[in-house]
């Protein structure tokens, strides 16, 4: 690894010089333009006599403006970068690690491991106490850099996945990205504050001063635009490079792909108010309106590159989100015992199916279609792969189950796994439940019945999730407005596309609703979370109709 302390220090001094130069340039041009306009405005009469509209500042005046701008830029730089790490930590609400708490101890160990892989670069650790999934790095010119992880991410990733995420952040630190982004945020944070102030002030002032105000506002807007453009054009490349360095450090591209996949499938928090601070995170917190301004490249692209490095395909990721059930584990173990024998069977690419306590096959797709006994929940395994999973999770096999729908004695089939939904009694209503993915389909009437009754006690995890949903209410509403139709499932009743939305103003839980027949699809646990939230509402009776 070619990142020694000397190089990192050199990189630091170079980035300081570049940033100061940019700042001076911005101050100089702004001051020069203002000076030019003011001069032209006040000397308007002289101009008319001379028959010209503009008077350019002379060389001496330009030099004076430059000196003043440089002084202002330096003051600005030192004022904003002093103690910027503390301020960033405050904005992000990061807390130190509690080493008596095992997950935090593990995080600290992992950070030290990655630091060892880089030849002993010192890095600190901190956590943010939120359920969202994300990680970031911050650094300044004086103290050691820090890597922060949210509690949500800490609970979702295993050791090697967390190691890959830390590797990615450490790569940002070693490449100097962290320092540049933190500094840029601190410096331009001042402009952002000024912009907001002027915008508010504009409503109160009138006359010539307002004109100057508008002018300054427009110039700031321009600076803001270039800042955003600059940050986004640099950081898109940075993410790919940091991914590559992380793989080089941990030699584990699959774990990084898995963690990116897990983060992308979960709530990854609202974007921070300071522009550009979002580029500190491993996955951009808020979905940006204009893709050109995203600080991060599309996550699918990053995952695909990593999967290519690992010689794996997407199916390796999908199994990640499903808890391995005991039966899958048993099947998995029995496969491992026979692994050597089956390795010799270098057949065509096919599927093995787990039946009567052993793996049968391999079968071609056509053969599977003719089997007759293959069900949506049969365990299958791709030839050459080790992971076993239920057949409904393999998107290529789903067409096989569709014709079976008519055979099933249920009204509907699951929009996710095409398995027939079971009619069950639930809180006084008859609802349809998928026995595989544990999702529920309810009409509005059934929902009211369910919500009114309070027969059920909820597990701790459901109550915790309900609390998280309430705490993140604002952010969730903000995010749902920006969502670009991620998972569009078809209504099991009328086959129209269902809309991804938050259940209600009171219960900010993501559900799918059919705009035509009004049925609502709840994924696993979502219905219970909504119920738990409603049960606590003081004015529940008025709301549920």
């Amino acid at each position, binding site marked *: *690894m*070619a990142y*020694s302390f000397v190089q990192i220090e050199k990189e630091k001094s170079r980035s300081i010089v570049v940033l100061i130069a940019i700042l001076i340039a911005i101050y100089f041009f702004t001051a020069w333009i203002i000076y030019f306009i003011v001069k032209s405005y006040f000397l308007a009469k002289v101009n008319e006599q001379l028959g010209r509209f503009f008077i350019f500042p002379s060389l001496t005046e330009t030099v004076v403006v430059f000196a003043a701008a440089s002084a202002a830029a330096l003051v600005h730089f030192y004022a904003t970068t002093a103690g910027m790490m503390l301020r960033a930590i405050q904005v992000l609400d990061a807390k130190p690690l509690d080493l008596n708490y*095992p997950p935090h*101890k*593990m995080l600290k*160990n*992992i950070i*030290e*491991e*990655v630091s*060892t*892989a*880089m*030849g*002993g670069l010192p890095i600190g650790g901190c956590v943010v106490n939120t359920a969202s999934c994300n990680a970031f790095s911050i650094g300044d010119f004086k103290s050691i850099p820090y890597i922060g992880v949210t509690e949500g991410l800490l609970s979702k990733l295993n*050791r090697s996945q967390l*190691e890959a995420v830390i590797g990615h952040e450490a790569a940002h630190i070693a490449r100097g990205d962290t320092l540049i982004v933190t500094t840029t945020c601190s410096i331009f944070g001042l402009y952002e504050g000024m912009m907001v102030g002027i915008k508010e002030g504009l409503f109160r002032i009138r006359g010539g001063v307002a004109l100057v105000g508008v002018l300054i506002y427009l110039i700031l807007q321009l600076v803001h635009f270039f800042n955003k453009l600059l940050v986004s054009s640099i950081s898109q490349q940075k993410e790919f490079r940091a991914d590559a360095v992380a793989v080089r*450090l941990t*030699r584990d591209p699959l774990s990084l792909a898995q963690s990116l996949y897990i983060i992308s499938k979960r709530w990854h928090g609202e974007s921070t108010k300071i522009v550009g601070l979002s580029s500190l995170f491993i996955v951009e917190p808020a979905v940006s309106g204009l893709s050109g301004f995203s600080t991060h490249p599309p996550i699918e692209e990053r995952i695909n590159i990593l999967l290519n490095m690992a010689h794996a395909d997407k199916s390796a990721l999908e199994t990640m989100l499903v808890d391995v059930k005991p039966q899958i584990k048993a099947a998995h173990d029995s496969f491992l015992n026979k692994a050597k024998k089956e390795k010799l069977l270098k057949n065509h690419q096919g599927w093995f199916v787990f039946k009567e306590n052993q793996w049968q096959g391999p079968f071609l797709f056509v053969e599977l279609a003719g089997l007759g006994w293959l069900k949506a929940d049969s365990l299958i395994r791709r030839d050459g792969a080790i992971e076993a999973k239920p057949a409904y999770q393999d998107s290529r096999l789903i067409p096989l189950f569709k014709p079976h729908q008519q055979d099933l004695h249920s009204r509907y089939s699951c929009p996710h796994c095409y398995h027939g939904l079971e009619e069950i009694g639930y809180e006084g209503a008859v609802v349809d439940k998928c026995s595989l993915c544990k999702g529920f389909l309810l009409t509005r009437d059934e929902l009211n019945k369910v919500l009114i009754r309070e027969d059920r006690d909820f597990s701790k995890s459901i109550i915790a999730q309900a609390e998280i949903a309430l705490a993140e209410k604002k952010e969730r509403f903000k995010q749902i407005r920006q969502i670009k139709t991620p998972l569009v499932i078809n209504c099991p009743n009328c086959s129209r596309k269902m809309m991804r939305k938050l259940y209600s103003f009171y219960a900010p839980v993501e559900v799918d609703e059919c705009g035509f027949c009004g049925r609502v699809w709840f994924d696993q646990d979502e219905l219970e979370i909504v119920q738990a939230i409603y049960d606590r509402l003081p004015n529940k009776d008025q709301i549920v109709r």
Partner: protein
Amino acid sequence: MLTGLAILLVLAVMAVLVVIGIYNGIIALRNSVDNAWAQIDVQLKRRHDLIPNLVNVAKGYLVHEKETLENVIKARTQATQATAVKDKQAAENMLTSSLRSLFAVVEQYPDLKANQNLLKLHEEITSTENRIAFARQFYNDEVMRHNTLIQKFPNNVIAGSFNFGNKELFEIDDPSHKEVPEVKL
């Protein structure tokens, strides 16, 4: 004649400067390799310090597994005494395999598996094994950079005349050794 001499002098000075540059480059990388080796040593020491704790925790439960415990202690003693790269490799590999058999034994004792101290130690040992692997990876990367540098022309001539030899890689005899001794707790 005089100009020819001047050109010759300039060339000689340039040659000396090039030699100095290459020499310093090699020295810097050599020190970096030594530093990387010291890093492995730090991590190995950490492992050696953890083992007595592990043995102490496990001793009370593993009355009938004296042999396994003794093997670990023996391997540790050998590892702490080894100095040459080759000896160290062998001793550490032995220690790794004895640790793995210890953890395999631990799996069969539910009481021990639930022991809080053991859980903490397990995390520490997992982390230490990773650190050793990463330190070794860093050392090997540095050694590779060093060896590539001194084998390149014209560096090889200078390295040869100053007696700079290749550095040894820290290899592991069996790729499965890279895996952390795993215990499911």
